Structure formats: C-alpha cells, structure tokens
C-alpha cells in the first residue's frame, strides 16, 4: 500500500514502566516515502525511544504510530511492520547473530520463512549493495566496526524494507567507519528510494538530511531543513546542542558585520559567501 506518508506519528506520548515522567510527550510528525530525516538530540532526549516506537519495539502509551499503513498497536501486524521498517543499532557487535557474515544476512530471511533457494540471490544482492560481498564468508570478529554496521544494513536490506531506522549507528565508529556507513545509507536512500530515519548527535551528519527534527526533553523543539534548523544558532545552544562548525563560524562573521546569508552548512558554502562578501565585484561577474 503506497500512501503519501510512510510513517505517521500521531500525538504520541511514551512513559517507561515504573517511571513517572514521560520519555516522550505529544510527538507529532509525518515522514514521506524516500525522505531522509535526521533526528537530533543529546543523550536522554528521547530520540532512541522515538526510534523504537517506529518499528513496534515499543508501543506508545498515548497516540498512534502508523508505519506503511499499519498501526503498531495491532499485535498481529508487528512482523509486517518490522519487515518494512528495519532497524540498525548503535553497537555493531550486539546485533550480529551468526558466526558467518552471509548467515547473519540470512537471519531475517530465515525468520520470515523464505525458502533457501530464494535467500541466496537476496543475500548476494544485499551484500553487494553495501559492498561487502568480498566478506560473505568472513567471521564477524574479523571485520572493522564500519564493516559490521554495513553487514547489519545488508541484513535489513535483504528483507526488502521501505524504511531503515538507524539508531546512532555511527556513534561507536571511528571517522572513516562513520563516513563508510553514512555513505552507504545515503546511497541506498537515493538509488533505492528507501526512507531513512537517521538518529544522531553528530551535527555534520544531520546537515546532510532532507529534514531535521530536534528532540529535547521528550518533545520536538525545532523542525525543518538543516539550513532552517541550524539557522537558530542561539536556540540550539540553549538546548546544549552544537551547530555545524561552518554554521557557527558564519554566525560569528555575521555578528562581526560581514554580510553572510543564513543556512551556511559546509566549507564550500561559507567559502562562496566569504568570497562574495570580500570581492563583491568579482563574484558579480
């Protein structure tokens, strides 16, 4: 079923068992098919809780989450939802089940009851989509963190999902592993049209998204394109969140009187703006 919204979060609140304060309160958002949404927030802001509500690992205390037309409240639909909305977790070691890479990719398919002849091509194409086919017969402990996360992505991909939810999937990786995983996810988002929900506390990663949701103390404070969200430099700082370095620098320069537009995110953006400000004639020609 294809609708205009892939995930519909309708006035959702969530309270953990035995806790008095809600972890999330009155979250409202719609995610469109093919969108790359970053959810930004510091530790304990409720962003991971939100992720787990999106594939029925948690059921909202109030409100409804509808994924691909299926309500997570309906217990019969749990497996349908989880097949369509795959999730990658923070710790690369704690989500690999099997002792061999290709068998781990098969894990989800085995759970769905796919016949083994059909599994083999699906595993191959999933592994080549994340460029890990060379490692099909390797043991997980021989791989780097970034490679393990790519295997985890392949495991989800083999189940042919419409949404991938990454819950701080890069938080435990080194810079090159982070880039590796992020590049893989962006490529899948663009080439296969898979909706991506990217939960992170890295501003530079959020800057690459189509839309950013900033979650603080269990509610969405800011939402919009990265340029719009990071434009609120003061509001972000107030929430103990940084903005990308270039945005911060642009803000400083603007305060010093340099005419620089809002929404600068990358080095290239800023270089262009500075050039424009310093040599107005040259850039005009």
């Amino acid at each position, binding site marked *: 079923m294809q609708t205009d919204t892939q995930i519909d979060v309708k006035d959702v609140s969530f309270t953990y068992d035995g806790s008095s304060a809600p972890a999330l309160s009155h979250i409202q958002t719609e995610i469109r098919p093919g969108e790359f949404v970053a959810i930004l927030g510091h530790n304990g802001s409720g962003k991971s809780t939100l992720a787990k509500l999106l594939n029925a690992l948690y059921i909202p205390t109030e409100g409804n989450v509808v994924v691909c037309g299926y309500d997570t409240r309906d217990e019969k639909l749990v497996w349908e939802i989880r097949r369509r909305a795959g999730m990658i977790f923070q710790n690369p*070691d704690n989500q690999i089940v099997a002792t061999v890479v290709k068998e781990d990719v098969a894990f989800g*398919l*085995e759970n769905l009851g796919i016949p083994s002849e059909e599994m*083999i091509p699906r595993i191959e194409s999933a592994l080549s989509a994340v460029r890990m086919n060379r490692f099909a017969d390797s043991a997980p402990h021989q791989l780097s963190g970034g490679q393990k996360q790519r295997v985890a992505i392949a495991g989800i991909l083999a189940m042919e999902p419409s949404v991938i939810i990454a819950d701080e999937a890069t938080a435990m990786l080194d810079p090159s592993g982070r880039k590796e995983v992020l590049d893989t996810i962006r490529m899948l988002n663009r080439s296969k049209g898979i909706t991506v929900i990217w939960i992170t506390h890295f501003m530079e990663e959020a800057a690459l998204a189509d839309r950013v949701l900033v979650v603080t103390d269990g509610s969405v404070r800011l939402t919009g394109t990265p340029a719009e969200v990071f434009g609120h430099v003061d509001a972000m700082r107030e929430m103990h969140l940084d903005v990308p370095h270039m945005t911060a620098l642009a803000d400083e320069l603007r305060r010093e009187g340099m005419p620089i537009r809002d929404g600068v995110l990358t080095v290239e953006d800023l270089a262009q703006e500075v050039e424009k400000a310093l040599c107005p004639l040259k850039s005009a020609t």
Partner: protein
Amino acid sequence: MLNNITIGQYYPVDSPVHRLDPRIKLILTIGFIVSVFLAQSFSGYVLLFAFIFFVSRLSRVPFRMLLKGLKPLRIIIILTFFLNLFFTQGENVWVEFWIIRITREAFLQALFYSLRLIFLVAGTSLLTLTTSPVALADGLEILLSPLKKIHFPAHELAMMMTIALRFIPTLLEETDKIMKAQMARGADFESGNLISRARAMVPLLVPLFVSAFRRAGDLAMAMESRCYHGGEGRTRLRSLKLTRADLIACLVVAGFIALVVCSGLFLPF
C-alpha cells in the same frame, strides 16, 4: 591474536569426513560408541583401532591431534588400568607378592577397559575435529526436533549454542580490554596465592558480566527487530541434504559394527 583462535577443537581441512552431513556423523558416532561396548575380544579391539586409524587417515586429521584429545583423560585412563589390574579376581596368577596379586584375567580386563575409554574419546574427538561447532548445533537441532512434541527446546538450544559461539571472540576481546584497563590502574592478576589471585579476578569478572548482560539485552532487541519469533515457521539458509557419501558412510559403519559383533562370536581370541 584473536583472529586465529579455534573454537572447540575443530580442525578445518577439507576431507570426505568433513563433508559428511553432521546429522549422519552424530548418528554414526553413536553407532561407533555402541560398537566399542560390543567388542569383547582381542580381535574386536584390533578392529576398533583399525577403524579409528582409517577414519583419521581419511579425514586428514593428524594422529597427534587425536592423542592431544586423550591428554586430559590420561589420569582416568591410567587409574582405570591399575584399579582393574589390582582388584580383578582371576585364576592364572602371574605375579604375587605381599598384597599385590596380578592375574592374566585382571591384566586383560585392565587393558580392555582402558582401551575402551581411549576408543570412546578418540571416536568422539573425530566427530568434533571434523565438524564445525555451528554444523554440530544444526545437526543436533534437526536430530532433536522430534522431541519438540514433548516440549523439548531443540531450536532454542541450537540457537543458544550458535550465539554463544558467535560471542566467544567478542567476550575474549573484552576480557583482554578490561584486564589491561585494570592493570593500568595497578591491578595484579599474576602474583600471590590461589585465594588472592581469585580475589583479583573480581574486578575483571564483574564488569565482564555486566557488559555480557547488556549485550544480551541489545541482541535480543536486535533479533526481535529482525522478526525473530522462535523456531516456528523458520527456514534455514543451509539446508542439510543427504548425499551418496552419507549413504556409503552409513553402510561402512553398519558393516563395521557387524564385523565387531561377529569377531566376538566366531573368533577364538
């Protein structure tokens, strides 16, 4: 360091024995164990030895690997030998002085009992040397699956074995890390008597257990999010198929058991 650890005692080479179906190998090992108990005469033990020798040759597992498997049991084997030697009653006395009395019957019984132990260990070692632990878990799951009817958790057992195997290297790595961290803070794991060394293990084991539990929680959530809901309706990537080699192996072992039984019945020694 951690890349070349072998789990269990699997000896990874390619051989006709390695390629056999794990289910068949499990059943044939049980068959072999039965034949060890059926052997009653000297010729039977010669046959058993010949069989072990033949299979180890065929499997390309070096004979010393089998001997290595016997090493931890050497005390039990020696004890079995001497207990039987000194305490079995018999007619044909060979040696007699003070309270020691060794008879021909006692010697033969001592020899046979210890040989029996050696063959049992060698036979089961051949199974674990030629079958990877994961294949073994798979084979066990299928062989035990009829017991699901009486609520025996065959699938869960095999899944637990696989996950344990998967996490052995991870936990080893972690132990190493914690050990170094504690040593950097002045912990001493190597000196002192047994009790103080055991006590020194506490700051190593506590964090290790805490992290193992956290991993277990994480893994359970990751498995659920990938639609894991127990063994029901599950398919498997590696479906086990019986081949001609499996059939031949069955026939060979059946013939061997028959031979052992006949040797006990018809051969005079």
